[in-house]
């Protein structure tokens, strides 16, 4: 859970900085109603994840064999599954898994991809060629297929799912970061800064990093959504996170067999995935518009 908190803290710090660029970004972000809705949804989810034991009326693995496959009622808000477990409670606990998987996988992708991309972009030449050829090869396999193959090799489980999803997204981060580094590197203000006597360290710290940050933040915030979706997909086909862990995709997969008579077992986990991803997409879109005013008019 630590990483989740850290990331949000980072995001909050970034947004509420009272001076300069950060403040402008926040002002632009604030104007975007949909982005605020996204932030609200994501905030709510984080809260739900952190306070799961308080929010959930039952424990996620509590089986009540006397009330199996019950339709939604006041007692069981989203009904119960075939083992009599409260679906609402499982979804609440599931938010922990999904957010954790999403953030960690996106972090893996950002770190590995970002490192490869910036090395390739900054040093250029042979290193660039080698790295980008390798990225091209990875790009030739659709991300989902790559994630499935990696997960098949590593075996199912929470950690392996995160690694598989994270690695499958490395190429796109690498490309984004390389592109950003290359554009910034060739800008005239870098030349100007060098002409004014700025050394490499100063240039990287003052010019290249801040100018690459925006596309990375945007890609990462949208990447969390993608990662959650990919992880849920893999759990759905039985490769990712395994039952009885209350992962939303796995819940969907388990409920599939009962869809005719108990559609609520499939409906609610799916809605949970959708809302999470919708919130993250809104947030990511809002961040992009706020960070890059050129894109919006």
């Amino acid at each position: 859970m630590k990483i989740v908190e850290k990331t949000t803290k980072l995001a909050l710090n970034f947004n509420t900085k009272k001076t300069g660029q950060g403040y402008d970004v926040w002002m632009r972000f604030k104007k975007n109603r949909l982005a605020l809705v996204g932030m609200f949804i994501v905030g709510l989810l984080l809260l739900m994840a952190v306070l799961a034991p308080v929010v959930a009326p039952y424990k996620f693995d509590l089986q009540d064999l006397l009330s199996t496959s019950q339709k939604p009622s006041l007692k069981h808000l989203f009904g119960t599954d075939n083992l009599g477990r409260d679906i609402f409670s499982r979804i609440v606990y599931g938010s922990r898994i999904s957010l954790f998987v999403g953030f960690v996988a996106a972090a893996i992708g950002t770190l590995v991809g970002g490192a490869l991309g910036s090395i390739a972009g900054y040093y250029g030449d042979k290193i660039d060629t080698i790295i980008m050829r390798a990225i091209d090869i990875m790009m030739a396999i659709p991300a989902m297929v790559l994630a499935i193959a990696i997960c098949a090799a590593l075996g199912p489980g929470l950690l392996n799912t995160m690694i598989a999803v994270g690695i499958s997204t490395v190429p796109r981060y690498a490309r984004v970061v390389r592109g950003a580094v290359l554009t910034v590197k060739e800008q005239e203000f870098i030349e100007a800064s060098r002409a004014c006597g700025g050394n490499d360290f100063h240039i990287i710290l003052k010019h290249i990093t801040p100018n690459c940050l925006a596309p990375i933040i945007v890609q990462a915030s949208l990447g969390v959504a993608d990662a959650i979706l990919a992880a849920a997909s893999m759990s759905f086909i039985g490769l990712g996170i395994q039952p009885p862990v209350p992962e939303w995709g796995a819940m969907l997969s388990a409920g599939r067999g009962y869809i005719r008579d108990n559609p609520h077992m499939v409906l609610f986990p799916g809605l949970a995935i959708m809302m999470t991803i919708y919130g993250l997409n809104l947030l990511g879109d809002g961040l992009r518009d706020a960070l890059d005013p050129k894109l919006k008019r």
Partner: protein
Amino acid sequence: MSRYILKRIFHMIPVMFGVSLIIFTLMFFIPGDPARQILGDKATEASISELRAELGLDKPFVVQYVNYIEGVLTGDFGISYTTKQPVSAELFARFPTTLLFAIISILVACIIGIPLGIISATRQYSFIDNISTTLTLLGMSIPSFWLGLMLMLLFSLHLGWFPATGFYGPKYWVLPSVTIGVTSAAFITRMTRSSMLEVIRQDYIRTARSKGQTEFKIITKHALKNAMIPVVTTIGLIFGASLGGQIITEQVFSIPGLGKLMIDAISQRNYPVVEGGVLLIAFSFTVINLLVDLIYAYIDPRIKSQFVIEKKKKESTALKGM
């Protein structure tokens, strides 16, 4: 132009080798012994090691990989562990279904996405645009397997309009294609909208307007062709993404395609089938991207003329040499 195509095909070779190496390595390190898997728990150690030798599983990694590549180059993807049939036969029996599925889905996505994106862009911030933007983002957020299940629940289990499983004719195509198509359409709508918005602010659109051209013609004649350039790239990428999404969706609708074959193979540790499947998907994806680049060059004269100029230069230097 043909020189360019040849060059691109030439570029595909190392990429495909790379893909085969990645996937072979992944499968090689999967825990568990396929020989034991094939023969079952009751098999004797002797018969297991005999089978290992027969399948070449006792050789070192490099030898196994070289053997595999040699086979692939002659169209031999190995033998399926479960059915004992050549993998190539299994793959090519399933491939047309998957390809058909992919093409129908992308058509559905384009038919919905491109017009919606154009309308959205030309009426920015209007009611239609707001609705479409909201729906688009929702479409991007719907997990395709869940959408598939919901569509199945409503249209086949409750209303009985379409069959729930299989892929044997137009009636069967509807639900799976819509399932994949909705997400892809959302991406295409977004891309078309933003690209169109960018284009309609260009000076040449103002020029067209100052000629007295109608808005409809300005959009169709001047804006669309320019706006489609980035959209075509997106369609190529989406094709790859939907190939991935299809694997899951084939599972939902029990479509006898490549995806279902591969997922079943993974659970049975049937590596040759998984390897062959990934190779085939990567190959098709690469070919699609090549096609996309060709369409790109066809739409954008700036790219096309680059090759013509290159060619002319080469011809003129060749002439000088004589």
